[in-house]
């Protein structure tokens, strides 16, 4: 058990809990904040969204042990008492936006951050902002209309444009610095002596065997050497999903034999259900500030391993030097996930559908991997060994991702076909980096996700394209080449035929658009 002190809805609170307990359940069970709901426990529905240090996150996937002392947490209960929150609540009421209401505490948190940060919301950006908050009742129309209404109201009379600057401080800080005065005059909410509020079913309430939250990389490496194989916990958006799923395996009994476990996309359920899981040893990386951030040196972008997908989306050097990576980060989950998800987590998790890998593969990115004795550098391409398998040693930590920035004449892009328009895992995703010289393709790199056991480059197609003139006929042939070079499977998201065909379409679409927009060629 660990004890933490946080400022919850403007009030200092203390709670004691097992380190891996999701923040959602600590809020609900230890701190009587039952505003955030559990709709899925896996980051998909957004009903649990709260503002953690100012940013919306799905609290079901935030390990409470990773939330530092002194952090600020705002849930719907508290946000509704702030001026901006009040206006949002009123607008939702006025528009008749609410039906069953279960999604609304999460909607309120997401909306608060959106209106605070977005200077000029429109229909599209509002829908994008809400895309991590599922609502099954309303069709979203009235929610969107209400939010746009608040944005309009906020516009100072007579001025147009930058609407949003005022309520709430900049992202990344306490959302209420500016409004705290107002808050203090409000009566504090009745603070029930932490009645054990009902839990939605469950958290994995078990303690990890050990939980470390080192502040420096050296400490982390020393721990890693002492406890080889310990789980490295970054944002937790893969690990917590896996741990939660294991802890909640349906209790299926009476299977004829243990060996009869089917298909790939289905976790090995019975096995997990029969034996209690091993308690993991966990090293949290989220307190190591040195692992975050982006620097540029000699045309190489150095991205800290624990930089979040949200930070990737908003970093200006990356927008210039690695636009495909930025596009991919934009396509990853929805905002509450992007604040949790880290770059290294996405790469080390080694899903064939990892969106951040293809842009890095086409850029020729490398990883810096450290252990107590020193650091090695390895091309990302060599990092993958098979389905969900990397060559990371049990005592190693990925520290930096090195990305050669785009140089003059080079262009790159990313495209994803998902199961829906947002918050979806790729059926196929593709990245291309290309350079023309004298009207011919001088250099080209192609990478794809979800078409093989790992994310892959397509060396044969790249070779065939080199020195070709970009023409419609070339794109026709390219589609074929790509289709021949990939080996997708059928699973719950799509089928092999479709994936094979779409790999070709995405790559040629990207090539055509990159080459056209640069050179006007067809």
């Amino acid at each position, binding site marked *: 058990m660990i004890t933490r002190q946080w400022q919850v809805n403007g009030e200092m609170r203390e709670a004691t809990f097992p380190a891996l307990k999701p923040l959602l359940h600590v809020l609900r069970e230890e701190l*009587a904040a*039952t505003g955030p*709901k*559990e*709709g*899925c*426990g*896996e980051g*998909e*529905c957004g009903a649990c969204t709260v503002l953690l240090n100012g940013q919306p996150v799905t609290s079901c996937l935030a390990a409470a042990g990773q939330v530092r002392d002194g952090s600020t947490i705002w849930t*719907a*209960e508290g946000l509704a008492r702030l001026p901006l929150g009040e206006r949002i609540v009123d607008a939702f*009421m006025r528009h*008749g936006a*609410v*039906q*069953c*209401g*279960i*999604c*609304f*505490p999460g909607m*309120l948190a997401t909306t608060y951050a959106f209106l605070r940060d977005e200077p000029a919301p429109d229909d599209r950006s*509002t*829908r*994008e902002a809400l895309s991590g908050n599922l*609502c*099954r*009742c309303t*069709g*979203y*129309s009235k929610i969107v209309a209400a939010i746009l209404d608040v944005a309009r109201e906020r516009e100072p009379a007579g001025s147009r444009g930058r609407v949003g600057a005022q309520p709430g401080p900049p992202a990344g800080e306490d959302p209420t610095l500016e409004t705290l005065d107002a808050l203090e005059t409000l009566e504090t909410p009745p603070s*029930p002596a932490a*009645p*054990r509020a*009902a839990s*939605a*079913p*469950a958290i994995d309430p*078990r303690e990890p065997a050990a939980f470390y939250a080192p502040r420096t990389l050296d400490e982390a490496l020393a721990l890693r050497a002492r406890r080889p194989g310990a789980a490295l916990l970054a944002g937790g958006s893969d690990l917590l999903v896996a741990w939660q799923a294991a802890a*909640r395996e*349906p*209790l*299926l*009994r*009476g*299977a*004829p034999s243990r060996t009869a476990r089917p298909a790939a996309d*289905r976790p090995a359920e*019975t096995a997990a259900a029969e034996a209690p899981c091993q308690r993991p040893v966990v090293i949290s990386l989220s307190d190591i500030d040195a692992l975050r951030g982006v620097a540029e040196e000699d045309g190489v972008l150095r991205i800290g391993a624990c930089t979040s997908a949200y930070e990737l989306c908003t970093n200006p050097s990356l927008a210039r030097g690695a636009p495909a990576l930025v596009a991919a980060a934009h396509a990853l989950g929805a905002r509450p996930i992007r604040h949790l998800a880290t770059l290294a987590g996405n790469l080390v998790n080694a899903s064939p559908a990892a969106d951040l890998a293809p842009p890095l593969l086409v850029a020729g990115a490398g990883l810096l991997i450290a252990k107590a004795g020193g650091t090695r550098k390895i091309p990302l391409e060599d990092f993958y060994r098979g389905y969900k398998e990397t060559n990371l040693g049990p005592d190693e930590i990925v520290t930096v991702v090195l990305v050669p920035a785009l140089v003059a004449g080079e262009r790159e892009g990313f495209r994803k*076909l998902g*199961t*829906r*328009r*947002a*918050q979806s895992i790729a059926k196929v995703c593709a990245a291309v980096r290309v350079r023309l010289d004298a009207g011919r393709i001088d250099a080209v790199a192609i990478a794809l996700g979800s078409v093989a056991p790992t994310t892959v480059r397509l060396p044969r197609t790249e070779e065939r394209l080199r020195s070709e003139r970009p023409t419609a006929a070339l794109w026709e042939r390219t589609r074929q080449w790509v289709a021949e070079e990939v080996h997708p499977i059928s699973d*719950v998201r*799509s089928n092999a035929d479709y994936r094979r065909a*779409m790999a070709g*379409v995405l790559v040629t679409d990207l090539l055509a658009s990159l080459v056209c927009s640069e050179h006007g060629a067809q």
Partner: protein
Amino acid sequence: MIGRSPARTDAREKIVGSTRYIADYVVPGVWQGITLRSAVAAGRIRTVTADAHFPHGEAVLVTGQELGATNRVAMVTDEMPFLATDAVRYAGEPIALVAAPTLHAARAAAHAVRIEIDPCTPLFSLQEAEERRRADPASVRVHAECRITRGDAAAALRNAAIVIAGTYTTQAQEQAYIEPQGVIAWPGQRGGTVIEGSLQCPYYVHNALVRLLGCAPEDVIVRQSPTGGAFGGKEDIPSVIGGHAALLARACGHPVRIVYDRHEDLLFTPKRHPSIVHHRTGVSEDGRLLAMEITVVLDGGAYTTLSPVVLSRAVLHATGPYECPHVAIHGVCLGTNIPPPGAFRGFGAPQVAFAIESHIDRIAHRCHLRPDEIRRRNIMRIGSVTATGQILRESVSAERVLDEALTASDFVRKWQAHGAAARQRHRRGIGLALTWHGGGFTGNGEVNLASVAALSIEDDGRLLIRTSNVEMGQGAHTALPQIVAERLGVPLERIACAQPDTSQVPNSGPTVASRTVMVVGRLIERCADQLADALEQAAGPRAQWNDFDGALDALRTAGDPLRFEARYEPPPGIHWDERTYRGDAYAVYSYACTVVELSTDTLTGEVKVERAIAACDIGRAIHPQVVEGQIEGGVLQGLGMGLLEQSTTHEGRFDQNRFQTYIIPTALDAPEILPIIVEDPYSRGPGGAKGLGELPVHGPAPALANAVAQASGRRITDLPVTPERIVAAGAGDPASPIRDLPSPSRDLPSPSRDPASPSGVGDEKEEA
């Protein structure tokens, strides 16, 4: 008050998070219950035992063996056990229950429970069941079967100039309420229980629990907790989960909470029935329906549950709102080894709407008519006769909603423009669907229910509406007070709805079938009339009252009863024969016309729905804003069914076990939705209102499929219309001819027909 949109009374608390749903309840000493389930889809249970490690005293185990004859869930038929004891019929069927102070402890205790099952041969798919039954009718369980006959369809088909056949399929659709299933049971008096939970039908649960526990009705109390979405998904299963919790509470002596997590909820609770619908239709050259032969096959899964009623609604809506002199409909619901499907908004009607509304577009194509023309030519009007011989006498607004939607969408112009557009990669399409929905229970259902609602005057002078109909987001507890306010001319603030609690409210029936406002609202209206009469008796004619309170005082002083009840009475002249399926299937129908506009990328099969318009006639909109919300939400659920919500099984288990794989629309997937309220009052509805809740769900999927057919040149006859299916049908292939593209002008010759149609593409047959 009717026709205005006062703020919903429950909205603020829900937004700010202070509404307590069942998982939020603080219950001292509560234990957590979990369910042990069968890993096999079909088999015989050999043993269910706790081994020596079971922590007796710290946990309890309940099995079906202890229950004996009471181990049956009271539903349409009393077939399904609370806990399987002998046969298991689906993977995930509950076999045993464990409760302990924490979930973790309960799961740990569950490791000490041994279950052994001898497997036998299962039947996993409806296609397989249909084939097997064709070979040997006795080899497949039949949950329900029914026929509707009007005229002589076989003969008329023989004589028809044109006969068009088609087969349409839909998959299971998950309700995907964001609040999972949950209940708490307290040990009650004299062997009874108190149940509180997320549910739609308090008296269903009450009935089931009285039977299970073998106690007096008054010793079971069922209360609804604020419900985070239901859509039919909390109609039948709360009886099961409520029973489970009550059994555990009785065993351990503590209150017991069972809240499903999302995996359990997605895998094992009821969904929309998968369906196969076959149509053979005879039409005249000018597009008049001469004969319809329709077969509706539903997958009823492992147990009968609500299937007979779902099937009944499906066959009764199968012709769509079109008149045809010769109709033969055969409906059958087959047993398979998947979790039993159940109620989902629409209740059988969306499946058949997809079939008929796709089919009618194909007929239009064959007859060189526009989608709106073919529909208008056959549309139900006042005086039209349905397949069951019902003469439609009032509030028949099919043509009105059609006109409203055509105008609002500029349909004809767009349809012609898209049809004539060049075949580029990105193309647009517009599609139409015209649908109907019978309000209230089918046939004699309302008579059998004999619902009672009450209105009482409370000590503080408030008027309390007492019904068992729940607020689950649809706005019932906002609309019902408006009906009373309108009738009595009192302010809304002094009227409230009692939270449904079987010890406090009469049985006004379940919150299903779009019946709450139309049927129960009417009862409440009658209660209000009784109150008005009583007040006039006590205080003299209304014109002489000083104010309402004065009149109330007079009533109190007179010592008259302060509670008014009304019981359902069927409208005069309504007759239904369940045996022959003849007569008035529903007292009245609501109508909707849905138009979907979209664009497709024919190479990737991606569909971007841009706009959806739904003109809905619901008689009278009590609260227009709530009505719009119902339409918008219903349309998006229908679009989800049409486009995204894939549901497949592997060995009888759903592959989509989480929200990452069961895909419902996000805000970015939702188009602009334009709800149009049409009001053609119904004389027996409160203020003229008809049913609304389910109506908007039916049209979007077929309208979408029709729009995709126009945009891509490919008709997809199996839902959902996925990119995979569009691409597999050859949409992106420039070499292949356009198939089934509705012709932009009636002068075009009939398109050439490709005899070898790829799978997933409708096979249009023409017979001489």
